């Protein structure tokens, strides 16, 4: 079997999430919007100075969304993605 190359993770956010830009992103699995909405609300309530942006990824849940990825790379300090099933 092929060896598995390790890839370093991005460093975690320093100094907490206050004042940061947090993306909450749905994979676009059917009928899961309420759960993602509640994650957004929880971030807004817990970190009132944070900018919380809720997005639904385009295409089916397995498909890539390069436009969104570029936006996240440019603007996001942190990213939460959910959910299927």
């Amino acid at each position: 079997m092929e060896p598995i190359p390790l890839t370093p993770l991005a460093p975690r956010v320093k100094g907490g999430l206050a004042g940061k830009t947090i993306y909450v992103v749905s994979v676009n699995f059917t009928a899961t919007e309420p759960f993602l909405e509640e994650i957004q609300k929880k971030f807004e309530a817990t970190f009132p100075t944070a900018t919380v942006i809720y997005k639904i990824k385009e295409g089916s849940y397995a498909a890539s969304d390069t436009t969104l990825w570029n936006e996240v790379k440019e603007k996001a300090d942190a990213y939460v993605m959910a959910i299927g099933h």
Partner: protein
Amino acid sequence: MQHSETIEKLGVPTVALVTEAFADQCRNLIYESGFPTQRLFFTPMPITGKDNAYGQQVINGKDPVTGKVLWDEIVEGLTVDHPDDQKTGSIITQRPAQYGPDTPEKINQLLQDKKYTDYLPVNLPTLSAVNEMLKGTSHNRDEALGRMRSTNYWRYRSYTVENVACAAVMAGCKPSYMPVLLAVAKSQTPAWITSTHSFGAMYVVNGPIRKEINMNSGIGALGPFNHANATIGRAITILSKCLTNIGHAGTAYMGTTGNNTNYNNMCCAENEEELPPGWNPYHVQRGFKKEQSTITRIGLWDFIQADPSFEWSLLEQLPNCFLKSQMSQGATAIFDPVAAGRLYGEGATSKEFVSQYIIKNTLVKVKDYWANSYEIQNFVRPTAMLGQGSMAQYWTRHPDLMMPFFARTNNVQVVVVGGGTQQFWQIASGTPGAPQDIDVWR
């Protein structure tokens, strides 16, 4: 989850949330993809279809897998480093090529424990048995055939002619069946793939090899009534399990109910001798010569038996039966020779005629199409809603208008299998792949 890995590579810390049913699978996957410390947390199953109040409850409640408060995990996952987050290098895993001598019972148990079998007793792939099986092909035992994986989330595993011979021995095949199995292995496609849907497969053999190895294309062809059909189909299952990790239910295999066709893959031969005039064998339809031998895989979403009326046109009944299959991405009709003959008598002068008739006349209301199934809602609708792709034109159509059920692929195929005892037929929700050349493996 693979999306979260993409975002991590872009330099943005992420948390991925999945439902608890996928805990084992996802933990294995983050290891396989080289992100062993990826922040992965779990919710109860299901989340889909639940309301906002439930969502609040889940976020403030405990992760059902770890027992920790989910919200705390999410915040910590974004803000607290793990000492192994920045590790580089490789994880190398090996598996032994051979096992030492032991009792047949213990080796059978070992093969079961490794999830290489279908849990029925297997013939042990001893060196002498494998050598005998290799007499069925002129190809060298060390010849590389390719690599396989259960889906694109998992690593590939490479394999050789000898590996296929081992699976053939285990399944009880004769050496003369080897060219058929090598053709399957060369396709680099396992019998079924990882999904929460319980996929199956059907394998259809065409050409002279059907008679050479005494395959069944008549009465009971899809059932346990013939040695070649049974053991080749079984070997394909064992091959798929040995050459991928698809045998691991709960990690690589997630089909929620399972699919009984996975035992034998409905392996059969097409009844070429009973085809009506103008109806070509499937491999001839795909550009092979009649005297060539091939095997074709049909990937299955579901499988139903039609119960037609004999009192009016069989051709006219076909569309209604296909609507019941619910699977709009394509289908394969499996006609008994007498049913095929009846269609011929009603003017179906070729298989292509039947295919086009079904495609043209199987219609559904627009609103019913978009509400039809998980498959359409998750894989077709998201793109159509954006105005992209060939299905976008139907997203904006009036909901009560009719549209072609098979609009997405316009793909309906026909094979003829059966012993002519009744005008019955079956629908496999799935379309055949490319026929694989068997003769090159003799």
